[in-house]
C-alpha cells in the first residue's frame, strides 16, 4: 500500500468547488489552498464573478479551511491583474498576487511595499518545455527578492519541472500532473534515486518496465496501476500524490524557509507541493484515506 503522509497539500479552485463543503476535504486530511480557476472557466466559456469568488474565499479562509487564496489574475494584463488584487483586498480578502513569466523583477516592489511577503510566479505551464527559460526568469525574480525584499516567499503555479523546483527556494508549488493517469493515460512518478520524473503509460505494459521504482518507492505492484479505469483511480491518485510528496520532502529539506505572514489563514506548516484536480471525487478519495 502506498504510504501517504497526511495532511496532503492540495489546491482547490472556486470554479470547480464553489458549492462544495471544503471542510469535508480539510477534515479528511487535505491542507487546502484556493484559487479562482479562471483559466479553466475561460476554456469552458465561463467567467468568474469577482464578488462571489471573494465571498467563497472569505468563507473558507476565515475558519482556516483554506490556508491562503490566490488573486484572480489576468494572464498578459498586469494592470487588470493589479485591479483584481486591489478589488479583492477591498472586499476584505487578502489575496496572493501573481507575477507572470516575463515580468521585470522591479515589479515586485509594488507588492512588497504593500506589505505582501508571498507572491505567485505564473505563466510557467507553457514554459515547462523550456526549463532554461523558466529557470532564468524565476531566478531573476528570486535573486532580486533575496537582495531587496528577503522576506518575500514564492509559489510556483503549475510547476512540474524538477530542475526549478529543486534549485530555487519555493515556499510552495502546485501541479495538475497528479491527474495525468486518468486524464492523459500516463503517470508521472518521481524517482527519488535518480531525482527525475518518469513518465509511464497506463497501457497495461509499461508499468512492468518500472517494477523496481513502483514497488520500492510506491508500495504497489505494477499490475495494480498498469491500466487506468474507474476502479483504479483512487490508487492512481494515491500513487501520484506520493510522487509529489517525494518532491515536497526534497524541496522542504533543501529550503527550510521561514513562513510568510501576509494572506496566511492557517498556523500549520504550509510549505509544500500541492496536488491539483478539478474532479471532486479524486480529492475526496484522498481525503477519505486521511480519516
Amino acid at each position: 500500500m502506498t504510504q501517504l503522509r497526511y495532511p496532503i497539500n492540495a489546491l482547490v479552485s472556486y470554479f470547480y468547488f464553489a458549492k462544495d463543503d471544503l471542510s469535508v476535504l480539510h477534515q479528511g486530511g487535505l491542507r487546502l489552498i484556493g484559487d479562482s480557476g479562471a483559466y479553466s472557466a475561460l476554456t469552458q466559456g465561463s467567467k468568474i464573478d469577482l464578488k462571489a469568488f471573494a465571498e467563497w474565499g472569505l468563507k473558507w479562509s476565515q475558519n482556516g479551511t483554506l490556508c491562503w487564496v490566490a488573486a484572480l489574475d489576468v494572464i498578459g494584463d498586469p494592470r487588470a491583474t493589479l485591479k483584481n488584487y486591489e478589488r479583492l483586498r477591498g472586499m476584505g480578502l487578502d489575496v496572493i498576487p501573481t507575477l507572470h513569466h516575463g515580468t521585470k523583477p522591479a515589479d515586485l516592489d509594488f507588492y512588497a511595499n504593500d506589505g505582501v511577503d508571498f507572491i505567485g510566479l505564473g505563466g510557467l505551464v507553457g514554459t515547462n518545455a523550456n526549463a532554461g527559460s523558466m529557470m532564468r526568469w524565476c531566478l531573476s525574480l528570486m535573486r532580486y527578492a533575496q537582495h531587496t525584499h528577503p522576506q518575500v516567499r514564492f509559489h510556483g503555479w503549475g510547476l512540474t519541472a524538477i530542475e526549478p523546483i529543486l534549485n530555487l527556494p519555493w515556499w510552495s508549488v502546485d501541479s495538475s500532473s497528479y491527474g495525468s493517469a486518468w486524464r492523459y493515460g500516463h503517470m508521472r512518478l518521481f524517482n527519488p534515486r535518480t531525482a527525475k520524473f518518469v513518465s509511464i503509460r497506463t497501457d497495461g505494459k509499461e508499468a512492468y518496465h518500472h517494477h523496481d521504482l513502483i514497488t520500492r518507492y510506491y508500495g504497489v505492484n505494477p499490475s495494480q496501476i498498469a491500466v487506468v479505469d474507474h476502479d483504479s483511480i483512487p490508487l492512481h491518485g494515491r500513487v501520484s500524490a506520493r510522487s509529489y510528496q517525494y518532491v515536497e520532502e526534497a524541496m522542504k529539506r533543501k529550503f527550510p524557509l521561514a513562513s510568510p505572514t501576509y494572506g496566511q489563514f492557517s498556523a500549520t506548516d504550509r510549505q509544500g507541493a500541492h496536488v491539483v484536480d478539478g474532479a471532486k471525487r479524486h480529492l475526496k478519495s484522498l481525503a477519505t484515506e486521511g480519516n
Partner: protein
Amino acid sequence: MKIENVALDTIELDPDNARTHSSRNLETIKESLAAFGQRKPVVLFGNTVIAGNGTVEAARSLGWSKIAVTRVPPDWTLEQAKAYAIADNRTSELAEWDGNQLLKTLSDFDADALMSTGFNQEDLDALMKVWGPAPDLDELYDDIGDPTEEDDWQVIRARVPEDVYQRWNECLKSTGEKDLSAIIMVIDVAHRALVL
C-alpha cells in the same frame, strides 16, 4: 559456519533463481570483487548456488578458478533451500538508503573508490539534487545568467498541407532557422493575400 574454497567449474548456478542480474549489476559485482576480493562466501545447496549467483557469474567472467563457499545444513530440504534463496534477496531488497548519510560518505570518495561502490557520478549528482544543500542563487546566476529575449518568444503550432510545409522548409533553408525576417515576410504575404 564452515567456509571452503571450491573450483568454480564444480558448482552450478541455480536454474530456478528468481533474481535476475542485469549487465550493469554484473559489472558492479565485478568492480567490487576486483577492488575488495570476495568478502562473503557463496551459499550452496549440494553443488547448486542458492545465494551468490551474481558473484559466481562475475567471478567466472573475471577468470577466477576458485571461490569461497559455505553449505546449508545437510538436513535442509529443497523447499527450505528455495525459501532461503528468496529470503536472502528479499531481506536486502527491503532495506532503504539513508540518502543524507550516503551522500556524505560517497562525496568523500575519489573516482576509483566511487566506482568500486557500484555508484557512479550520475548517481552522486542525483543524490546531491535531492539530499544536497540548497544552491546559492548568485552562483546559479553565474551558471545560467539573465533572461534572454528569446525566453519570451511564444511557440506557434499549426497543421498545414504538405506543399505548404515543403515551401516553409525551403524558406527556412534559404534564410536560416533563426532569421525572423523570413517568418515575418511569410506572415505579411499571407496577411496581404487575405486582405486583398
